[in-house]
């Protein structure tokens, strides 16, 4: 932990200038990822393997959009117009992961997003919760309460796939495809965003500790398919992060952005004529 003791920041205007921009960038990254992850959950409300799983996807989609809305609203204090952020950007301006750019073609690919990516986002919120920037503390706690059930869903379904040889192979392929993006989302060594926010006590830990926390959560399942292993009390990734294509501003590994359909849904284009203000 690198959090420093000291007074709390009651609003964005209290933040040190070096931290202000970085926190705004991190919140925008989180909001965009929540918005697009919600879309991906919503794609499976109908067509999930069971009615209950479809209901869970509906609830998780609603949760993610609620979380995104809360974080977009916070960005007003960081010099953004939340309405323009939600409805007025091109695909290339989104900070969401390349994992979320288009349709998820299989249930196991959705589980990779559910168990690996959603958990990575939660680890970021855990690092923000109880920090020195007061406006996000309560919101992070509330959000993480809901995320417990998202994790339980991903873990429960992963266990089910691991119970059969064919399922294990399918899960391994899906998790492997998402694994590197998850490793990288915590940032490279010396990442200025994470370092600056940790230095000011706004993130409670640095990138290595956050990645370790994520591995602690997903490691027991990932180890079953050869992506992680336990060393002493710690879980480690078998592979090192590959930073090819890393964009330090958008915090993703590929150019481009959400595809046309995803972008239209994320922005609410069909409802544009209903906007009164």
């Amino acid at each position, binding site marked *: 932990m690198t959090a420093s003791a000291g007074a709390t920041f009651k609003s964005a205007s209290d933040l040190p200038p070096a931290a202000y921009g970085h926190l705004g960038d991190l919140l925008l990254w989180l909001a965009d990822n929540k918005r697009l992850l919600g879309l991906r959950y919503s794609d499976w*409300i109908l067509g999930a*393997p*069971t*009615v*209950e*799983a*479809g*209901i*869970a996807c*509906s*609830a*998780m989609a*609603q949760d993610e959009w609620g979380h995104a809305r809360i974080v977009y609203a916070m960005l007003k204090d960081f010099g953004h117009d939340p309405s323009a952020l939600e409805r007025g950007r091109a695909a290339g301006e989104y900070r969401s992961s390349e994992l979320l750019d288009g349709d998820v073609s299989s249930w196991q690919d959705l589980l990779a997003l559910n168990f690996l990516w959603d958990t990575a986002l939660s680890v970021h919120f855990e690092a923000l919760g109880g920090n020195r920037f007061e406006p996000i503390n309560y919101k992070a706690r509330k959000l993480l309460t809901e995320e417990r*059930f998202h994790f*339980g*869903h991903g*873990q*429960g*379904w992963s*266990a*089910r796939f691991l*119970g059969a040889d064919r399922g294990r192979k399918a899960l391994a392929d899906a998790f492997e495809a998402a694994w590197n993006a998850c490793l990288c989302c915590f940032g490279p060594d010396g990442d200025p965003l994470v370092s600056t926010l940790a230095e000011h006590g706004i993130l409670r830990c640095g990138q290595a500790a956050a990645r370790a926390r994520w591995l602690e959560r997903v490691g027991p399942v990932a180890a079953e398919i050869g992506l992680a292993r336990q060393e002493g009390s710690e879980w480690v990734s078998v592979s090192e992060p590959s930073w090819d294509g890393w964009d330090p501003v958008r915090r993703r590994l590929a150019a481009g952005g959400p595809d046309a359909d995803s972008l239209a849904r994320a922005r609410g284009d069909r409802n544009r004529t209903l906007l009164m203000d």
Partner: protein
Amino acid sequence: MTRNGHGGPGRGERGGLGDEQVYEVFARKKRADRFQHIGAVFAPSRQLARVYAWHTYDEAKWFEMTVAPRNAFASVNLSHAPFTLGRADGSPERR
């Protein structure tokens, strides 16, 4: 939010995923309340039963919710499945 009606699924209503079983869902709104049976979910594990119950029966801000596999309940006065949702073998319930 999509919700199932009270009562939920009965055994034998759906095929396919054979490792699933019915979990009965109970909840109470306040600590002082008694638990009420609010429905049921199909799930392959206790962990997913918890998730499904929480997401399916979200019509109230529950103080406490719990799930139990239907086959954990022993009928006292009936010879067939409890909660009168059907016989254990899926055949029609006798009146």
